[in-house]
């Protein structure tokens, strides 16, 4: 029982990060019908920027409280990722707005590879140690343990998700985003500058991604130029599981995927009599992806895929 509870807690932590990243995929898909495969790399760059800023500041600003340094690092990561996502959309996707759908998709994959390589050139190939942001002193809840950092991950992610849903559902910008995702021409007739709304969508998704990058790097205490790839694929899977294009679906899909992976990894050893171990964790995400695509391609909450295909 303790193991199950522990895996559920771990799954929620993991799932919160997936959900944050999945929102970036699903927002862009909802408005452009594009799978922005470079989003995982934006997340990675968020982690890298935060790490670089923290390293720089701890070296130069001795005596400054760590909270200030961490906040500055996250702010820098968000700012850089927003600018990067704006530039990616402007340079790589906008010229292909009216091209056949395959063209921007391949461009997205190319952008992902490009960003990985640029990151490798800047930050090197080796794994970088991400500093401890919080005490690792675990709290015990009913036999399961959770650290301060894990609590922060869940709380921050939940707050951001609620904030995003409020933005999309109750503000003028959010209304324009939904209108644009439904019909760009008509949105234009309402006075909406569709290009600006699309940029805003990319930029908001990137901000969430930047935070997710910092959280995941902190959670594993590691940052690496390729960390965005697997995380991006998992988050994409989460978005598909929830129903791509649907914000609530991305949140649900992310949390579910985190739970499936975590519980799967926790029990796979027992179930297979030790033949397969917890390092097969990644199998579950892709098993889920395949099953969803075969049996319910619209995902749990989505209808749009069928509508748009």
């Amino acid at each position, binding site marked *: 029982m303790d193991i199950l509870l522990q895996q559920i807690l771990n799954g929620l932590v993991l799932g919160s990060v997936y959900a944050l990243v999945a929102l970036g995929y699903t927002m862009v898909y909802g408005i452009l019908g594009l799978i922005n495969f470079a989003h995982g790399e934006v997340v990675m760059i968020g982690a890298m920027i935060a790490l670089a800023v923290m390293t720089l500041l701890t070296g130069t600003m001795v005596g400054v409280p760590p909270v200030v340094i961490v906040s500055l690092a996250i702010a820098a990561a968000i700012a850089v990722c927003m600018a990067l996502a704006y530039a990616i959309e402007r340079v790589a996707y906008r010229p292909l707005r009216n091209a056949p759908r395959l063209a921007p998709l391949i461009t997205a994959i190319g952008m992902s590879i490009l960003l990985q390589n640029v990151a490798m050139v800047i930050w090197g190939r080796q794994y970088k140690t991400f500093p401890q942001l919080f005490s690792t002193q675990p709290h015990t809840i009913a036999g399961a343990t959770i650290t301060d950092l894990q609590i922060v991950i869940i709380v921050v992610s939940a707050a951001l998700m609620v904030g995003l849903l409020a933005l999309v559902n109750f503000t*003028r910008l959010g*209304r*324009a985003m*939904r*209108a644009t995702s*439904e*019909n760009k*021409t*008509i*949105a*234009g*007739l*309402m*006075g*909406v*500058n*569709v290009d600006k709304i699309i940029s805003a969508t990319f930029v908001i998704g990137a901000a969430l991604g930047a935070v997710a990058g910092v959280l995941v790097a902190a959670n594993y205490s590691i940052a690496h130029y390729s960390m965005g790839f697997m995380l991006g694929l998992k988050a994409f899977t989460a978005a598909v599981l929830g129903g791509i294009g649907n914000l609530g679906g991305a949140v649900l899909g992310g949390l579910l995927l985190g739970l499936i992976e975590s519980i799967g990894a926790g029990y796979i050893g027992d179930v297979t009599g030790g033949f397969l171990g917890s390092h097969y964790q990644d199998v579950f995400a892709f098993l889920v992806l395949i099953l969803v695509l075969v049996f319910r391609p619209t995902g749990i909450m989505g209808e749009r895929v069928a509508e748009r295909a």
Partner: protein
Amino acid sequence: MSMLEVSKLKVSYGGINAVKGIDLRVDAGEMVALIGANGAGKTTTLKAVSGLLQHGGHVRYNGEDVSRRPAYQLVELGIAMVPEGRGVFGRLTVDENLRMGAYVINDRGLIRGEVDRIYHLFPRLKERRDQTAGTLSGGEQQMLAIGRALMSQPRLLLLDEPSMGLAPLMVEKIFEVVRQISENGVTILLVEQNARLALAMSGRSYVMESGTVTLEGESASLLDNPQVRQAYLGE
């Protein structure tokens, strides 16, 4: 000076010349109809005027050349369009659709007042304010599309086939409102296949045929024109 002045307007897409250099004008306060058969180029003309289609020739609005301006900029200048097929946002509520219409207006109090005015004009919409627009009937969607266009407080309203696909009773209702809008001083350019209705409603009309304007004049005299009677009024 006319409010809207279109000169030598040419639109072609996919190698087809849909509009072949037409001239038309709409003076402030007028209701002008553009009638003609299916495929005559009426909707294309309206789309070009509203900034949705690239075109040759010139579109002047209050003397300013707006030919190269995209649709979203024209809304701020006071041009609103009710598109063919209504184009409501089906996943947004009625209320949200109306608020989208007021996208270019920043004054919250003004928007609230306008929403109330539209609900007064179309009580049916008020009853359904929290329903998504996709669940409305065709006539209700047309009311919503017109109400939404009015939300931007336009000086020039472009109406594309407001009677399309509606029951006769609903058509009557919609056109009653169009008449009210016109009486309130909004200038209207109306594209309509129902020629009898359009000619009865409007002051002046243009008749389009395969991309050109073949006849123009007072609507009342066009109603008596034997050519028009035969070709468009089925007599």
